């Protein structure tokens, strides 16, 4: 039925294809996705391409606290370990911890948030109380105590404790959103057409919260990475498993800052910072995917080589666009 316009020039054709193809993401989101993808790739192949065993010590004088060189691209530690290998190996543990914690905490948040919002009444009271209690628990001291006194101080226990403390923020937000969605007409309509409760929840309400859930996931990952690095930094970690936090712990332990051995702590620190930046930028993109209204037209629009903000008055473009109705080019 719809007849496509004969488009002029390659530029117009490219634009058509782009609009029809993948969802257009903003530059911010693309940079974020790129950074995160790089880190994921590094975490997957890192241990395989690491040039040395990260724990291999060497007390030869040339190997101790050596600045970056061809043999050790990121220098060596005070015990002659290769920093690059440590970062490459440690990245995997930190990233896995972040992603797993994010996943567990987000699932908890979604289950608790949607149940509380959708069921209402007693369940809402109970679940809200629960999340409020977890929300006011001072996280870091509790983490220190829990991880410090757990019989096994490893990756798994850290993930579990971080997940347990990381879900209430997401749950509160999702509950609030579910409450407003529950009262909308389309939910009432879907109930009226006889949809089952689980279908209403998963097919009517959940898709409206995708951006919220994804944002909650990304921020939980960010929180988990930051907290795990902080815990490792104060020594609450498994010392037999390399992570970005452990590198920083040893760097601090070995007085890297006082010895001006910047290559010891800077790579791991920068990795954490860059990963955080990437995750935050990615968050913007997730917003755009989850909210179709943010995708186009909401932001700036380029017309005739100029960017227009939504608040601008309607642009007036006279050049070449005024055609007499008698000679319509597309009416061929």
């Amino acid at each position, binding site marked *: 039925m719809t007849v496509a316009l004969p488009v002029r020039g390659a530029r117009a054709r490219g634009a058509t294809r782009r609009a029809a193809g993948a969802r257009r993401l903003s530059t911010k989101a693309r940079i974020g996705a790129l950074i995160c993808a790089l880190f994921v790739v590094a975490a997957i192949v890192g241990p395989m391409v690491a040039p040395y065993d990260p724990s291999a010590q060497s007390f030869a004088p040339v190997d101790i606290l050596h600045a970056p060189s061809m043999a050790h691209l990121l220098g060596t530690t005070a015990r002659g370990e290769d920093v690059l290998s440590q970062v490459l190996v440690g990245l995997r543990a930190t990233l896995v911890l972040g992603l797993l914690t994010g996943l567990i905490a987000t699932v908890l948040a979604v289950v608790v948030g949607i149940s509380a919002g959708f069921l209402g009444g007693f369940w809402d009271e109970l679940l809200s109380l629960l999340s409020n209690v977890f929300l006011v628990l001072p996280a870091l001291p509790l983490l220190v105590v829990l991880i410090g006194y757990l019989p096994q101080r490893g990756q798994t226990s850290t993930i579990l404790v971080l997940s347990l403390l990381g879900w209430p923020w997401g749950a509160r937000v999702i509950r609030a959103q579910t409450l407003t969605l529950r009262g909308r007409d389309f939910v009432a309509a879907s109930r009226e057409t006889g949809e089952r409760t689980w279908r209403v929840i998963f097919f009517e309400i959940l898709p409206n919260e995708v951006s919220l859930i994804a944002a909650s996931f990304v921020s939980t990952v960010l929180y988990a990475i930051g907290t795990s690095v902080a815990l490792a930094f104060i020594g609450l970690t498994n010392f037999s498993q390399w992570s970005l936090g452990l590198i920083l712990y040893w760097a601090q332990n070995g007085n890297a800052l006082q010895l001006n051995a910047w290559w010891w702590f800077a790579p791991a620190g920068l990795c954490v910072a860059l990963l955080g930046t990437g995750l935050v930028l990615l968050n913007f993109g997730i917003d755009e995917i989850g909210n179709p209204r943010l995708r186009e037209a909401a932001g700036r629009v380029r017309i005739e080589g100029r960017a227009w903000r939504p608040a*601008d008055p309607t642009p007036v473009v006279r050049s070449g666009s005024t055609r007499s109705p008698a000679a319509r080019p597309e*009416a061929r």
Partner: protein
Amino acid sequence: MTVPVEPVLEISELSVAYRGAAGDVRAVERVSLSLRPGEVVGLAGESGSGKSTLAYGACRLLRPPAVITGGSVTYRGRRLAGRSVEVLERTPPELRELRWREIAIVFQSAMNALNPVLRVRDQLLDVVEAHLSLTKLDARERVASLLDLVAIPRDRLRSYPHELSGGMRQRVMIAMALAVDPEVVIMDEPTTALDVVVQREILGQIVELKQRLGFAVLFITHDLSLLLELADRIAVMYAGQLVEVASAHAVHHGPAHPYTKGLLNSFPSLRGPRRELAGIPGSPPDLRSLPAGCPFVPRCGFATDECTKVDMVLRAVPGARDPGHVSACPFVAPGAQAPDGKGTVSEVAS
């Protein structure tokens, strides 16, 4: 009937398009329409025919990717003392002076146009304070008198929008539009969401206020029957183009364009003999690729091969009583019957 006065708002050859990756959607195509002081001009047409785009485009309220691709909009208000203002040439700060003070708008949905968390008084005060330099006391008095104007008790000033009924909200919108004495009020389907009783009340109020305050109204609606009663002149739009402009009387008794005939045939008249409601078969064309000639051809009962070659300009209707009666259809006379019976007014009540 009308004395030739200079129009207060003159839209000429205005074209508005929505830029998209797949090309321009030409929502308004070379439309000329003028509004004389104190006149009610009705703009009728189906959904998507470009009525609102035309009105908002003329005020430059459309957001990009909407683009005005040609034409001019001239405003001549009393306060400008004979000068005229080209709306399309104005900078944003100059436009801000023009908006509301000179051209105000009653928006379509009063529920969404009023801020739900502000009291009615504060919202009205915003308008008054933005455009007039009054003392606080004078501004408050003005706001209170605005509610008098639309017959809402003054104690409603402290209400929030959700505490008002739909009709009251719409009247608040009208009061807001009239807050700073505009010369032109654009009403975008102000009564569409209301029931007929309230609708009647509000229309009566608009007419009365118009006579008292002397503003001109551009009344946008898809309800032609409403315009027959309310408007001085009626402009009918189809697929972004004007197809007929005439006095309300002429539209009622001698519609010249087949589309207008079809519209008139889509609702029952209260008086006169019963007739079958024909409606208009089909749906409006795709504005990205309009057919050559008249865009109404696929749905027109009068259509001939000639129609695909016709130039869509408004021509005076031969033999019309109203000298201003123009139609885009050069073939169909006001009294003509469609060969296959669709799209005609079979009985005319007089």
